């Protein structure tokens, strides 16, 4: 408690070289709050230099301050335009600033300045990949990985380049070799699994996941992909277990949670969460159509037939156009393709997935596209649509009692809603008559859950199925008359038909 104060720092202050090394270590360890004040001290101790600019640039990049990092690196290169480190750092910064061409220039400059520098080659390879030039990226990444095979990020880039050059087997081989070298690197494992799954080699993907588990890799993504692979192989019980493990490791992830709920391991919600749908469909967008074609997807054709049945004049010569028409959950625009020869006035698509909408946009068949959650869109929309289509959309809703009135409100008297649902008591194993379907799969596995008197159930793949009576009740309650209800095969999955129902509803009650 004696009030005299001790003097400040002792005499052994670190020298600039030592301090610079400490700062680099701290930046590499992500310890920006330690690096920042030390950099301030370093600037007081030493004159401006390329090295200080490089350190400052790295720190700013770590802090996510991209424009400032670019300015700092520019300043450093003004002091020393031959600094390979600065060119590499600026290539990184420019990539982050979406300046791919600038990044390419820096990466190329770094390679010219230091032809033996593996990092420069790797950065150039990554930039070229980003520029959709996998054939040019490949040699850079090959050389970089040959020089330093224990760099997982470079290996993943090399695998991507190989795959984009059509050599999926080569991609798998380099990933396998890297996994052997860096068994703890989760990103390598997931990259290898994704490569296998893109080849539709689900057996290989499942084996990769199993090997990861045996080697002690506990990662939500690995378990989640394992679940997908097993599910695609029809091994739903094992998939459920994998999803349950994934959820333990990513308990806040709505996507994984929905899959576990679908597997019957947690109490179920009455509809799929929006983040789940966005995740699934954004991730799916690029290969959605080929996937559906592989499943012999029939829904757009079925709805086209229903439209023509109801509005035969649309296919005939003359001016009788119908519109505007709303395509709910339009996805990549398959419905628009199916309807493209019909005389529709303004076809508008709505979807929750930006990735899907980008694919739909490319088709050029929609008057406009809206990125929105479906119910939110309907609630705020003021247009009156004589025809609304919902192809394979209500399979993401359990309860339809809320969404049908929203659609009803957007139809004029006599307006028509056409949609498909998967049928409750169909091929996924549900017992007839709404009885407990556990009888078929064993009570404990909880693989999927019965309609339970509610008229819908959540299936193992994360989709809901409905029974016809329930849909009809909900439709009538919302103010519709059921004009058509027909059993149809929607697609083929794991060599089995997926049964569904086609509904045509007409707005008949207008009392709100």
């Amino acid at each position, binding site marked *: 408690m004696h*009030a005299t104060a001790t003097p400040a720092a*002792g005499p052994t*202050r670190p020298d600039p070289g030592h301090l610079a090394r400490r700062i680099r270590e701290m930046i590499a360890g992500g310890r920006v709050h330690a*690096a920042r004040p030390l950099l*301030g001290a370093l600037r007081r101790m030493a004159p401006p230099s390329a090295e200080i600019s490089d350190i400052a640039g790295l720190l700013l990049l770590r802090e996510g301050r991209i424009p400032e990092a670019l300015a700092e690196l520019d300043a450093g290169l003004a002091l020393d335009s031959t600094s390979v480190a600065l060119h590499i750092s600026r290539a990184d910064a420019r990539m982050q600033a979406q300046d791919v061409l600038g990044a390419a220039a820096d990466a190329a400059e770094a390679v010219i300045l230091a032809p033996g520098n593996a990092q420069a080659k790797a950065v150039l390879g990554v930039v070229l990949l980003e520029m959709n030039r996998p054939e040019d990226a490949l040699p850079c990444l090959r050389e970089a990985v040959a020089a330093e095979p224990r760099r997982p990020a470079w290996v993943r880039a090399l695998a991507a380049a190989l795959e984009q050059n059509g050599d999926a087997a080569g991609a798998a081989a380099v990933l396998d070799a890297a996994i052997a070298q860096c068994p703890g690197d989760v990103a390598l494992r997931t990259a290898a699994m994704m490569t296998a799954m893109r080849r539709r080699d689900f057996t290989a993907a499942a084996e990769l996941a199993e090997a990861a588990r045996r080697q002690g890799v506990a990662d939500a993504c690995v378990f989640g992909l394992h679940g997908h692979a097993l599910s695609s192989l029809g091994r739903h019980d094992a998939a459920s277990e994998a999803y349950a493990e994934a959820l333990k490791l990513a308990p806040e992830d709505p996507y994984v949670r929905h899959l576990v709920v679908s597997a019957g391991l947690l109490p179920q919600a009455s509809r799929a969460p929006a983040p789940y749908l966005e995740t699934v469909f954004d991730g799916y967008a690029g290969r959605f159509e080929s996937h559906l074609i592989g499943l012999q997807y029939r829904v757009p054709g079925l709805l086209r037939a229903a439209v023509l049945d109801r509005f035969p004049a649309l296919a005939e010569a003359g001016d009788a156009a119908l519109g505007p028409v709303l395509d709910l959950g339009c996805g990549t625009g398959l419905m628009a393709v199916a309807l493209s020869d019909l005389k529709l006035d303004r076809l508008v698509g709505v979807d929750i997935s930006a990735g899907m909408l980008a694919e739909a946009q490319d088709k050029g068949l929609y008057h406009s596209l809206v990125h929105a959650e479906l119910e939110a869109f309907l609630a705020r929309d003021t247009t009156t649509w004589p025809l609304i289509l919902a192809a394979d959309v209500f399979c993401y809703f359990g309860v339809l009692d809320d969404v049908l009135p929203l659609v009803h409100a957007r139809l004029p008297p006599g307006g028509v809603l056409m949609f498909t649902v998967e049928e409750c008591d169909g091929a996924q194993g549900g017992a007839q008559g709404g009885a407990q379907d556990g009888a078929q799969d064993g009570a404990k596995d909880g693989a999927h859950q019965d309609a339970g008197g509610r008229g819908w159930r959540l299936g193992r793949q994360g989709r809901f199925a409905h029974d016809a009576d329930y849909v009809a009740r909900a439709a009538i309650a919302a103010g519709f008359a059921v004009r058509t209800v027909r059993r149809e095969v929607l697609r083929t999955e794991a060599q089995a038909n997926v049964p569904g129902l086609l509904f045509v509803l007409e707005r008949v009650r207008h009392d709100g």
Partner: protein
Amino acid sequence: MTVEPPPARLLPAALAGSDIAAWRGAEHAHLGMALLGEGRGGEALVALRGAVAFGDLRPATLLNLALAEEQAGDPELARASMRALGDRLPDWDEPPLRLGESLRRAGDLAAAEAAYERAVELNPQRPEALLSLAALLMLRHQAPRAQMLLLRCCARAPDRADAWDALGLALMLTGDIPAAESAFGEAQRLLPDNIDIAVRRAEAAALAGNAAAELARLDLAAADDPANVALLTARGVLLGRQGQRDEAVDVLEAAVALAPDALVPIVALSNALTTSSRARMAVDVLRRAVALAPDDSNLRNNLAATLVRVHRYDEARAILEVLIDEHGPQLNFLCNLTNALVSLGLQEQGVARARQAVALMPQAHLAWRALGNALSYHPDVTGQSLLAAYRGVGRTMPRTTPVALANTRDPARRLRLGLLSPTLKTHPVGWLTVAGFETLDPDAFEIICLGPPESTDPIQRRFRAAAAEWHVVDTETPAALAQRIRDLGIDILVELSGYGDRGLIAACAHRPAPVQVKWVGMQNHSTGLAEMDWIITDRWETPAGFERHYSERLLHLPDGYVCYSPPPYAPDLVALPALRRGHVTFGCFNNTAKITPVVIAAWARVLRAVPGARLVLKAHQFAEPATAARFCAAFADHGIDAARLELRAGSPHRALLAEYGDIDVVLDPFPYSGGLTTCEALWMGVPTVTLPGETFASRHSASHMSNAGLADWVVADLDAYVARAAAAAGDLAALAALRAGLRARLRASPLCDAPRFGRNLGAALRRAWHDWCAAEPATTTPG
């Protein structure tokens, strides 16, 4: 250090020393003062004596001679000279001031105070005297008077940073925190590089509720002066206080990098590392701090406590024993030493130290906690003796006046269920409870966690996902925490940390919730706390008749009292190792605190009964060679050759689990049995022979084994324990078959059936709630 001559007006003619002070005397005096100023007391003494011998009898020379005498090792003589000089020059303030300093150094604070008072009386405006007296008064709990003197001092010498700094300290003591912040601010303006002042200002700002403003100020100041260690240190301390621990550690590490020899940043860094559970790094930093300040007993005690956290018990014990030798038995030293001794398997010595702590401070709940925790491992513990120790904790726990709780007595409503623990994460508490909370009916219970700061820990993430709210419990006092729990409207509070390191149970003594329940987390027996209403248990932990060992009511679950979540990275089962090795390997992966001399004797009997068998013990403690050697010697005393023993140190969790691949049968320690350890062994295919006693901790394995359908591994006495182990070793076919199916069996058993457990837990908690709803509102709370 040297003194200036008194003003001539104060000197009587006899001492004015004009012609009698020969020039040679003055020269010697001059040299002596210079040497004194350099701290070369012995040489100064020679020179000043020379000056006097040559006839220099000037007061300043005589006083400097006294100072030199003190420096050279004769303080008594020095003080006598000062007193004599004071008597001869009663109006000169210098002798009493120097006398006060000497007395303060000698530890005679009362006499020092009187001397300083005299100096201030003689010269009421002299800053040095005001400052010294004020500092002493603060030590002697007279802060208001110190504050008054320091205000005078600051007015007289406004450029003295030390005066403003001391004024800040006095204002802190008198409780005027905003004024203290201002005073430290002024001191810092005068001495911007001073680390202590900067830190004190930051702490005052935090206490005054101005932490955010002070942080912003420090940010700005640091931007202008990035290499200023004082600013960095203050910022780091403040960030730590605000719970931004990672950032605090980073900033303090930067401060230490810039000023490696400054003590304050190193100590602050060690505190930040300790509170952010980075004990290993904290140990390194504390070692550096102790090297810089080897006489600081607090730092050495902190080092010992942190060494315990990183399982360096032997080293911690050595430090604490030296501290007790040097400073006598102090509560903190004794409690930490108890912990270290018990962890080393020296239960008898640990209990003795704990009893010493209780005798030293019978009103200190920490002493009783140490006793309870030590006793739970002691071979002679009984249900009643442990209850008595924990009742001691309950009795001495600080309490505030009970506050009326506003919870609505509606039996059916959705309840706000509070989980209170710093270990809602990867920890036995997490592995054994999280699945139960995940599967509680969300329509019946809303989970509110009062837990550790957010991290990416996978089990903490599971708690977070299950919880409706997460409140970080950090540095607040138990009373403040209790008020926060009340403000959250918690209906049922489940306490999950007990009397362990950083346990939060102290908040429960303030009755924050109408229904308070003890569950996992140092749940080694009753808490002995009158405010703990229930303890979650099962029929194996507390069979009929065991109620008398508990101060709580027993909230029985129909299956086991916990639900085990096996780790997703657990290795696959391997075949029974005895089949390929040709001999049986017994194992115990429990920490050595549980391994008593009685346990060692029993294991020696088992090894004698099964010729060729080996015993693998695995515990962090075996990393210390002295501990490993002591255990080998203990077995040798029972005729067991060291070749039959393998003592393994700790390892990462997956590697630890994989080592069950080497074990055929687990031998449980007693009276503190394995808890999570037994569950893990089962998951890895290895059954445990267990001998339950009266305490809760002694019956964990009995509960888990029975719950897994393996009650035939639970035995009644030592003979049966040895016989059961030998029998298992004698039927390898049966053991191999059991092992092969054990994981599947466990997965299907109530021990791992989370949905079933969640339903049972919900029903039990609802029962406790109904009980409270049915009770009359209490007019007083028990205490």
